């Protein structure tokens, strides 16, 4: 689709250079740690060396006397204000600072406030804590066994470690379909605990003004408005009411879901600032970030797929144990304890499905947040795309042919899935066929056969994923009761320039550019003349924030709707100026003209001026609008990826030779930014597939709590991504967009895993758990007698 607007206006479809970049390339971004307030103090945190222990005593005497130290805060300090516990976004509870026991290694135990960050770091070493270790529960299966130590002794009636049981689908009908199936394949998959590891860690500056009782918190948050409400709910009893709380989310150095939750450090900093009356800064270091912040994934999945002999899939059955650590601190919509995991029927026309998930407490950091994905969608996609390949191998069918045979046909959209979702739109065969054509699929299969004959290991992996994003319709979606709409407020100034404020918050997605382009598309005001603001709760309209690929589907939609309200008013003003009936006016981006007399026209700029200087009698002056957009449905981006790998028989090293990504995110606002989102998502899909895992030893000691051991992809492992697209507009979104920030993270891991298994399939390999490290591959090669 060619753009409707000129490059000067830069509405939808233009690869406009980003408006935020001039400050970033000059080193003039304004990230949390760049902010320095007069008289600011620094907070540092004492953390537990044990995964589970009783706290016998905390001696703060030495630390309190150290130079520059103003306060040492413990759980007892906070307990005086009833602030030592806080709710999680999943209506569970979590300690801010402990008064009795610690539940995971690196848990916050006490905090020091000092005049410099070096003084604070010195003083935490001087806080003496006496622990009495308790039995540690690391394995979630063990946690569910009778006789396992009950971890949440703070909950009066809790007799076991189960957090929730959740299920979807028709169990009886699914069991029947399995009983009648020609073929059943079963696979256990562990989708390991990982960490988003945005390059900027988390932090805040809490600034309580004692004179007017106002608290301003600058903080790394993806959801500033929701955080304001949470603070008001948690600390209302100590006098912090919502009109006197201002959350400011400055430039954010990557979020990916890790900056949605409220961490204890934020709350301690707020408490410290309120008590001391000075600004208090808390900035995590990397090890604290990896060891204590919310993790993602940690799903132990047992999947079964039933099919007919000809390859027609008939039913899917999944049972999952979800390790949430010591508290359910996920950031899912309230009614979805396992997120949107029930998208696990994927791109296939599966008539029967049943899925169940049990959430479990263990002695690990709390969480269950996303890692650049919409609420457990990655886990769902990995499961269905992996087991589809297991079925292909069982049936000796080509995995591409098996997918093409089972895709939901284009004409069946909107499609009601067996687990209850209404997929808005899709054309799955088109995406896969395009990817196969770009890859040269047949040639690759031929090359693979030749290489195999020579003993070389090459694999081709496919993933044809369906996402579910843009949460969400208020009927089903809320967080702590707050409905998951999002918002935009536009004000057009007298000279025809505009400011647009949104309830979301960019963390690198480029909202200052893409949102301006939406307004440009709808009003014809050049995107360069539209100032976009987000992240300040005192000025922006209320919204639920940026995560789960929801910004374009919700706030972006609100932007279009607010602009259309402005256009409606502009039409009235234009009719007044042109002395004609409203119905006689024709709109094209940037101006209204009279039907049949195109020379009689008023530009949006002229209309804006008139809105303040010559508006019709009886009409309000000004030209502005606000919209709170409640999406009628979620959006369902999709794509097909093909990955080609070569495996070194000497080292077990997997090299991604090619990676072809065909994505469909509906109509595109800025093609350059969409490509960038996909590139980044692919790297964050490759990361857990090949490199990243946070694991624990039997005592609950974290293995991989720094960048020494937790390996992020560098430019060396990352291939030259080959991207392309199909365009299937969302039928219900105001401009047909779907969201794209996470598609690649969701779609890439199974393409890579499938490629590696494909390279080893002739040796009898059916599955390898991610991350597929050289060690894992080498052990397989050795076992199969093909290691060099």
């Amino acid at each position, binding site marked *: 689709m060619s753009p409707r607007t000129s490059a000067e206006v830069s509405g939808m479809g233009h690869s406009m*250079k*980003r408006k*935020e*970049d*001039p*400050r*970033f*390339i*000059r*080193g*003039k*971004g304004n*990230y949390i*740690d*760049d902010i*320095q307030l007069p008289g600011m103090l620094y907070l540092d945190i004492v953390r537990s060396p044990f995964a589970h222990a009783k706290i016998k005593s905390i001696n703060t005497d030495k630390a309190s006397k150290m130079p520059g130290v103003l306060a040492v805060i413990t759980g007892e300090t906070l307990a005086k204000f009833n602030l030592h516990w806080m709710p999680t976004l999943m209506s569970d509870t979590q300690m801010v600072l402990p008064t009795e026991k610690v539940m995971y290694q690196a848990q916050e135990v006490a905090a020091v406030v000092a005049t410099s960050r*070096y003084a604070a770091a010195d003083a935490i070493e001087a806080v003496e804590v006496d622990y009495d270790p308790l039995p540690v529960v690391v394995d979630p299966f063990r946690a569910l066994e009778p006789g396992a130590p009950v971890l949440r002794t703070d909950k009066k009636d809790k007799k076991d470690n189960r957090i929730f049981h959740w299920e979807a689908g028709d169990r009886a009908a699914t069991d029947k379909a399995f009983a009648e199936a020609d073929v059943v394949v079963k696979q256990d998959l562990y989708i390991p605990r990982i960490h*988003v*590891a*945005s*390059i*900027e*860690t988390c932090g805040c500056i809490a600034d309580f003004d004692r004179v007017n009782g106002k608290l301003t918190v600058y903080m790394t948050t993806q959801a500033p408005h929701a955080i304001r409400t949470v603070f008001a709910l948690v600390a209302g009893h100590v006098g912090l009411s919502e009109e006197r709380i201002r959350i400011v989310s400055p*430039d*954010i*150095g*990557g979020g*990916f879901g890790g900056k949605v939750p409220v961490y204890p450090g934020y709350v301690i900093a707020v408490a410290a600032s309120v008590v001391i009356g000075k600004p208090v800064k808390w900035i995590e*270091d*990397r*090890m604290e970030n990896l060891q204590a912040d919310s993790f993602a994934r940690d799903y132990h999945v047992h999947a079964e797929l039933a099919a007919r002999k000809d390859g027609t899939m008939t039913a899917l059955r999944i049972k999952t144990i979800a390790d949430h650590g010591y508290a359910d601190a996920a950031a899912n919509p309230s009614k979805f304890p396992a997120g949107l995991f029930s998208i696990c029927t994927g791109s296939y026309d599966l008539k029967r499905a049943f899925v169940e998930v049990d959430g479990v407490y263990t002695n690990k950091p709390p969480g269950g947040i996303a890692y650049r994905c919409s609420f457990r969608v990655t886990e769902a996609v990995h499961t269905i795309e992996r087991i589809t390949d297991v079925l292909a191998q069982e049936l000796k069918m080509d995995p591409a042919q098996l997918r093409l045979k089972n895709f939901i046909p284009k004409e069946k959209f909107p499609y009601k899935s067996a687990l209850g979702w209404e997929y808005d739109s899709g054309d799955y065969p088109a995406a896969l066929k395009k990817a196969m054509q770009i890859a040269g699929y047949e040639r690759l299969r031929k090359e693979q056969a030749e290489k195999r004959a020579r003993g070389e290991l090459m694999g081709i992996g496919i993933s044809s994923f369906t996402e579910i994003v843009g949460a969400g319709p208020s009927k089903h979606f809320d967080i702590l009761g707050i409905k998951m709409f999002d918002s935009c407020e536009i004000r057009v100034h007298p000279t025809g320039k505009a400011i647009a404020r949104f309830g979301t918050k960019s*963390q*690198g*997605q*480029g909202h200052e550019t893409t949102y301006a382009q939406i307004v440009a598309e709808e009003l014809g005001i050049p995107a360069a003349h539209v100032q976009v603001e987000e992240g300040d709760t005192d000025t922006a309209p209320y919204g639920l924030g940026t995560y789960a690929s929801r910004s374009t589907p919700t706030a972006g939609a609100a932007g279009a709707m607010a602009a259309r309200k402005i256009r409606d008013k502009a039409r009235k003003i234009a009719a007044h100026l042109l002395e004609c009936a409203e119905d006689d006016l024709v709109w094209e981006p940037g101006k209204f003209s009279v039907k049949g007399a195109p020379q009689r026209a008023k530009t949006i700029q002229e209309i804006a001026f008139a809105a303040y200087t010559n508006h019709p009698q009886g009409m309000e002056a000004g030209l502005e609008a606000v919209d709170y957009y409640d999406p009628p449905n979620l959006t369902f981006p999709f794509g097909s990826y093909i990955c080609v790998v070569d495996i070194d028989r000497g080292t077990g090293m997997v090299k991604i030779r090619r990676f072809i990504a065909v994505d469909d995110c509906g109509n595109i606002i800025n093609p*350059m*930014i969409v*490509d*960038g989102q*996909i*590139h*980044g*998502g*692919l*790297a*964050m899909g490759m990361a857990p597939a090949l490199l990243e895992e946070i694991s624990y030893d039997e005592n609950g000691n974290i293995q991989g709590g*720094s*960048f*020494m051991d937790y390996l*992020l992809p*560098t*430019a*060396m492992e*990352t291939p*030259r*991504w080959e991207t392309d697209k199909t365009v299937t507009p969302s039928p219900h979104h105001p401009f047909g967009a779907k969201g794209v920030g996470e598609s690649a993270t969701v779609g890439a891991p199974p393409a890579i895993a499938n490629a590696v298994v494909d390279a080893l399939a002739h040796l009898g390999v059916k599955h390898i758990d991610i991350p597929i490290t050289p060690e894992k591959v080498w052990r397989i090669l050795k076992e199969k007698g093909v290691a060099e």
Partner: protein
Amino acid sequence: MATHKIKVTVNGAPREAEVESRLLLVHLLREDFRLTGTHIGCDTTHCGACTVLLDGQPVKSCTVLAVQADGRQVATVEGLEKDGKLHPVQEGFWQEHGLQCGYCTPGMMMTSCALLARNANPSEPEIREAISGNLCRCTGYLNIVKAVQYAAAKQKEGVHVA
């Protein structure tokens, strides 16, 4: 704790400071000199967000003591733009969408400048190797490679780099 008087030339301008022995160069730049374009991303010298040039060589300033910079030249992102004109590397990152959140960008650009100063015409593998000590979580690196290639082409046109 002992303190030391040091003199450092930062982006061509002489600066003086009295620092603790243990003060890190990155903290000297960010906190004492308020040059906050240089960022901190890890504790273990892996991420490269703090990369600056010390006498023209890229170093991770979280692993250099401020006293080690005494009497030497430090170049940071704030010094790249000259007389209101962007450095070709800055231009390249903007033009090729080589940044998203912008957090790794200053370090990534300083490493790229050092590469182009020693190799005017780097191949893609050479670029990838040069920036392999700088982690980016947003871009998937491809557009960063293109940004450096853009700057190299500009340099060939006679624009001075680094």
